């Protein structure tokens, strides 16, 4: 169990994490979703005590991380698979971690096998590892102490499709055994396929959180026209709650037929009309990404100007 309460972290005038609160429950996989630079990594570094928070608090298994007596045996952490001494072998990195946690050496071999590194690969220096091998090694280090909680920052990066599948099954099994899993990603799809609960962060703030089903359902209808705001205004005029999102899309709380009629009555040709089914989350995520990516927002502005 991880509890984050009103966490804030600023760098100079820039607020990287702004009043973030959420809980990762045991027995569930919690996906921490947000575009690059949204504050995911900073939040996770604060969680494990590598960065001091500006305000707020994080508790892991009911304690502050630095108060855990032997953190590796309770919390498995993987923040950056490349953050290892390049001159050590994979086996040596696991051995050091095992010695720190007071585990028997046999545990190292078990873990090498568990993360599918061959003995030959394990005795190579990490300098010569691919990113995928580093991720496997990092996941091995995280799992070494048989922890109750996993905190993983972008663990799927660099894994091939089979590796991603492997990791997904591994995390599912970990949560099904009662463990708490928090993993971050900037890819919506990745979080969709694995997470039970989703926390969406953008520009340092939580913009949505809930179970996957809650967030993916209940988004109503997605309609699209060349002029989104005009469509939204027309729907509002017809008494339908609607809000424009991006690229002419509008999320409306009514069924397909009602919206189709309202648009027809207003004389606005629709280019798309479908049940939202997660489009809400997707649209929200896209607009978040647009805010933080100059290219996308520029092209959106351009479209807006053209319309």
């Amino acid at each position, binding site marked *: *169990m991880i509890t984050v309460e009103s966490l804030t972290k600023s760098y100079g005038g820039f607020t990287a994490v702004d009043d973030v609160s959420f809980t990762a429950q*045991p027995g569930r996989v919690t996906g921490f979703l947000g575009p690059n630079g949204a504050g995911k990594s900073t939040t996770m*570094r604060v969680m*494990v*005590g*590598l*960065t*001091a928070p500006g305000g707020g608090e994080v*508790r892991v*298994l*009911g304690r502050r*991380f*630095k108060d*855990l*007596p*032997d*953190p*590796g*045996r*309770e919390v498995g*952490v993987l*923040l*950056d698979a*490349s*953050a*290892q*001494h*390049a*001159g*050590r072998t994979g086996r*040596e*990195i696991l051995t*050091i*971690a095992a*010695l*720190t*946690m*007071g585990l028997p050496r046999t545990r190292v071999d078990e873990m090498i096998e568990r993360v599918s590194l061959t003995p030959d690969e394990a005795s190579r*220096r990490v300098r010569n590892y691919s990113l995928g091998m580093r991720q496997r090694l990092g996941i091995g*280090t995280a799992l070494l102490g048989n922890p*109750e909680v996993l905190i993983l920052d972008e663990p799927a990066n660099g894994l091939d499709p089979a590796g991603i599948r492997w990791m997904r099954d591994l995390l599912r099994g970990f949560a099904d055994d*009662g463990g708490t899993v928090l993993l971050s990603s900037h890819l919506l799809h990745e979080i969709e396929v694995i997470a039970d609960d989703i926390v969406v962060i953008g520009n340092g703030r939580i913009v949505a959180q809930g179970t996957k089903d809650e967030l993916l359902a209940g988004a109503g209808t997605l309609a699209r026209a060349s002029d989104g705001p005009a469509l939204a205004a027309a729907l509002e005029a017809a008494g339908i709650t609607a809000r424009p999102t991006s690229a002419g899309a509008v999320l409306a709380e009514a069924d397909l037929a009602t919206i189709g009629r309202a648009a027809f009555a207003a004389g606005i040709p629709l280019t798309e009309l479908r049940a939202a089914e997660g489009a809400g989350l997707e649209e929200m995520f896209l607009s978040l990404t647009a805010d933080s990516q100059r290219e996308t927002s520029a092209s959106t502005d351009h479209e807006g100007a053209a319309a």
Partner: protein
Amino acid sequence: MTATTLDAVPVAADRVERTRPAPAPIPYRRVLNVELRKMFDTRSGLWLMVSIGVLSIIATAAVITFAPDSEITYESFATAIGMPMSIVLPMIAILGVTSEWSQRSGLTTFTLVPSRGRVIRAKATVTFLVGLVSMGVAFAVGAVGNLVGSAIVGVDTVWNISASTVPQIILGNLVGMAIGFTLGVVLRNSPAAIVGYFVVSLVMPGILVLLAEVRDWFADLQPWIDWNYTQVNLFEGATNTAKEWAMLGSTTAIWILVPLMVGVLFLRRSEVK
């Protein structure tokens, strides 16, 4: 009412949050053991250690080959071996600290042992141990060299380093390591700390000596400020009077104790990325 709620919540929360008993705290001995291992388990670390033995032997061989017969004495061997030693040992001290940042292994180290002060203390202890053992090796190689050298050349074996000088030479090397360690803690970056070491050990003493020559008021002050001056005295076994020890204390406070304390303070609060 309020009291009941306050009492009830943590108990309930604890039951949900923790399904197993908490493990025992990490004993300091384990941290020491791990930090000692980390000094040897990389290629660079291993070669630095090996180089202590190898350089001692090369220096010894050089004395036997090149020194005139009258100079085949224990002091010649000790001086020849001391030269590489005074460079390699501080490098070991520097890299033991800075590699956690420059190689970024600190991310793992400080999540497994969140008390950074504890890790730094363990590093200081194993650095000190490595220094002592290395000096032991150096003196032993020098002694063997002296025996072999005098036998080859056919002169009497001269043991001209007094028993009181040996601890001072060892202390002098430990001071050099402590300077390196301090630079490592303060700068937390391998290249910067290594350059920094050469600045404070090669460039700065020259400037201070120059300053002492042109400014009379500084001439009296220099031995209290110039750590290199007090270190050379140790290497020569010339730190004998209370005043000389006080000078050593002063340079140690200025260059090691104060910056180390400030450095550890910052290190504990800094962000590990």
